[in-house]
């Protein structure tokens, strides 16, 4: 053991945490990890359960569903059915990472490397987070939301607030923008455009046309009645702006839920990448610490034991199997990119000509910044990994009597397995495609939703309940149409306002 080795004890101290953090920070900087400043908070197990139940929001408004979450976490934890996560990290600036006091020193070092440098740099670098979240102000916004909800409860009663929040939560996943809205036009731009239009119209004026008899514009009228002009996928936004009967405070509640949904939107699309990236970096950083003689063998053994548990992928026929472990897949893919860069095989040269032999730090950084799970897998899942994981795809069609193995980890199947796995992470495939299609503005103000089927997959039963929530927010009848693959449209659900 040499003199600069960091002490290896199971009990952590504040002093030791600092020293480990300093060393980890140095190595992270060498690997060019760009992070927000870190704010590392030590919390107890109870506080961790609190954090859990508010889906990781450091301050959350009050709602019964968080209480339900808390009760179930508490129950399972007390019975020993689950361990608590070692860490929770919040996408904010400074980046807040929670360490649990029960962790050993090794675990704390792992968590610091994983959360405070891994996740943190991902939050700062990935394009989805850069586009959709605002880490500088999220904490302030959450504080505002909490106060606002509490104020509404005081003024309008807890039940009233709860009704709105319940309905909003039901539509939460449909409260996000998937594309940036164009920026508001400034008054000057508006004037300029108007002038352009005028000039254009003027140039088109031809007195002759005026005398032509007009065709009856029934079709035009129908088109005019179409509102919104284009189908809207952000239902909560539409409700916030257009629901006829909502009070201002109710609109604000809709907005709060929508904003929080938007804040979590990138996380839902980057599970594999985010966890893979963080896991890759805690592994790489702690190994570098070890290579430099900064940590002892005992430290490494303890670390590797935990690490292997985290990245274990049970096979499909194991009783522990519950889908693909994002830590396992993500870590394997990140490590694989490094391998392709450093030691490419013949196959890699063929599959990834632009990657083989490049600087792995740069290539990995590029991958982290510019992809989400779906595109990341489609781009980087290598045949070697498909073989390592022994991936295979199963086709389940309800018109067939049997399921079929459609592809396995062989030359013929690589691309298909990769395509299917990628689409499994595609939110727009995973979630039913439902959009707000029309509002009957001149009649009964009923709203029509349109579900465009994908691969004939039906909606789950609780759509009825969702419809009731939608009616509660919209205030008038809501209909749901389903568009089959062949283009036929039929109204499948209709829910009227209760009087």
């Amino acid at each position, binding site marked *: 053991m040499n003199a600069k080795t960091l002490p290896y004890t199971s009990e952590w101290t504040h002093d030791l945490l600092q020293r480990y953090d300093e060393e980890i920070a140095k190595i992270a900087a060498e690997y060019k990890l760009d992070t927000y400043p870190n704010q590392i908070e030590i919390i107890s197990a109870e506080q961790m359960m609190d954090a859990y139940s508010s889906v990781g929001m450091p301050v959350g408004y009050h709602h019964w569903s968080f209480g339900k979450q808390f009760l179930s976490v508490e129950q399972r934890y007390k019975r020993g059915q689950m361990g608590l996560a070692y860490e929770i990290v919040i996408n904010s600036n400074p980046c807040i990472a929670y360490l649990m006091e029960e962790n050993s020193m090794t675990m704390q070092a792992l968590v610091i490397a994983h959360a405070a440098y891994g996740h943190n740099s991902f939050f700062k670098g990935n394009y989805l987070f850069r586009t959709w979240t605002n880490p500088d102000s999220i904490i302030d916004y959450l504080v505002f939301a909490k106060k606002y909800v509490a104020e509404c409860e005081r003024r309008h009663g807890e039940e009233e607030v709860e009704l709105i929040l319940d309905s909003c939560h039901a539509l939460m996943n449909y409260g996000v923008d998937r594309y940036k809205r164009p920026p508001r036009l400034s008054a000057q731009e508006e004037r300029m455009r108007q002038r352009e239009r005028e000039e254009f119209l003027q140039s088109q004026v031809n007195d002759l046309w005026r005398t032509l008899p007009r065709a009856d514009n029934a079709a035009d009228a129908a088109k005019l009645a179409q509102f919104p002009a284009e189908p809207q996928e952000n239902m909560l936004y539409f409700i916030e702006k257009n629901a006829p009967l909502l009070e201002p405070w109710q609109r604000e509640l809709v907005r709060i839920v929508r904003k929080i949904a938007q804040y979590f939107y990138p996380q839902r699309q980057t599970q594999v990448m985010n966890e893979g990236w963080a896991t890759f970096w805690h592994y790489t950083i702690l190994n570098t610490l070890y290579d430099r003689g900064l940590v002892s063998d005992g430290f490494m053994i303890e670390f590797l034991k935990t690490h292997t548990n985290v990245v274990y992928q049970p096979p499909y026929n194991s009783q522990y*199997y519950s889908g693909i472990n994002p830590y396992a897949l993500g870590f394997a893919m990140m490590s694989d990119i490094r391998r392709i860069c450093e030691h490419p095989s013949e196959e890699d040269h063929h599959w990834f000509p632009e990657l083989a032999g490049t600087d792995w730090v740069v290539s990995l950084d590029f991958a982290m910044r510019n992809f989400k799970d779906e595109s990341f897998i489609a781009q980087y899942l290598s045949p070697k990994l498909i073989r390592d994981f022994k991936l295979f795809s199963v086709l389940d069609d309800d018109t067939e009597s049997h399921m079929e193995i459609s592809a396995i980890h062989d030359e013929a199947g690589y691309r298909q397995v990769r395509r299917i796995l990628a689409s499994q992470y595609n939110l727009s495939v995973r979630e039913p495609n439902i959009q707000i299609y029309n509002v009957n503005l001149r009649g009964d103000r009923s709203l029509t939703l349109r579900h465009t089927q994908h691969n004939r997959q039906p909606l789950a039963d609780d759509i009825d309940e969702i419809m009731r929530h939608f009616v509660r927010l919209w205030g008038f009848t809501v209909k749901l149409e389903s568009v089959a693959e062949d283009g036929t449209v039929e109204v499948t659900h209709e829910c009227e306002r209760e009087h």
Partner: protein
Amino acid sequence: MSQFIDRRPNGKNKSAVNRHKFIRRYKNQIKKAVSDAIAERSITDLDRGEKINIPAKDISEPVIHHGPGGHRETVHPGNTDFVTGDRLARPQGGSGGAGGGKASNSGEGMDDFVFQISREEFLDLFFEDLELPDLIKTQLQKLMREKTVRAGYTSDGVPTNINIIRSLKGALSRRIALRSPLQNQLREAEEELDALRLINDEDSARASALREKIAHLKTRIKAVPFIDTFDLRYNNRVKQPYPSSQAVMFCLMDVSGSMDQAKKDIAKRFFTLLYFFLTGTYDHIDLVFIRHHTIAKEVDENEFFYSRETGGTVVSSALKLMEEIIDKRYSPTEWNIYAAQASDGDNWSDDSPLCKELLIKSIMPRTQYYAYIEITEDTPRGLWREFQGVKKVHSNFAMQRIEKVADIFPVFRKLFKKKVA
């Protein structure tokens, strides 16, 4: 440079509000669990939290998602022996295997939602049925007992109570006080005599007068007694009244054939309620269960509530047994005696006047409170009328006819009325 913050000192109950909201929302389901629990538990054992089961589908939060069916293709890891084109039967009910991932999606096979509520939450829910006002301060009258406590010292008493130290201190100060002026005079006289001796004037009249004075003073000094009856101090003990902290609660119930299990359950709540209020006031509570048909018997709780007998009803048998037990085990000077009786109003008509007599003469004077409930929808019969007679004589006798659980509370309302002094 990272900043470390120790948040552990911050409160941990951030979720308390959310938890409370959840419980409020699912009160009906939880209340059902609570009343199930009441049936299973002993009266004295109700005072703790409870595990609550709610079917998961009742509290699920709906989100838009796909149901099973359609055309779907999924990737799984760990292939062992499949090759492309293999056909296999669908696994049933999502029991592991390739279909495992879907089971949770469709929401089937999820367990019940189980959680624990705290003691306070449990009691709140328990009492809610009874429609209690929120803030009840128990104003139970307690039996006063006396005990002797030290209360300083007195100047007379019995010899066994003499406080030696105090007495000798008194004696010492008295001796000092009485002797010191004489001693001063004695000293002066002796000094003068010494002065005369120096000038050889020992034989003068002055000298002999001084000698005489000295002898006289010495006698007087000697005469001051070492101890006097005046010095004696006795430990003083006075009797102080204090409320007795032990109580006994008699539960009397008619178990003749006409009391069915539903009636017994109402009775159980009634007994439990009384028990709870007593626990707030007394440190130690004994429970005595007496059941009766034509003869009365002291039994344990389980037998009390859950065994059935048939036959006629002689209420006085239970009252007599209660009287006996009081005589034997619970002296009214030491125990606060409470009694709660539940019945369906049946009694042998000859027996009812005897009950009244027993209550008025023997039992009521010795009990703090006697509550009688009649669980029936029929018109009042003999027993009820006789008991009304008891009520006129003794204000601490309460009676109520009950059809459902919510009727129980009025019986107690009287009990918690503030006693106006």
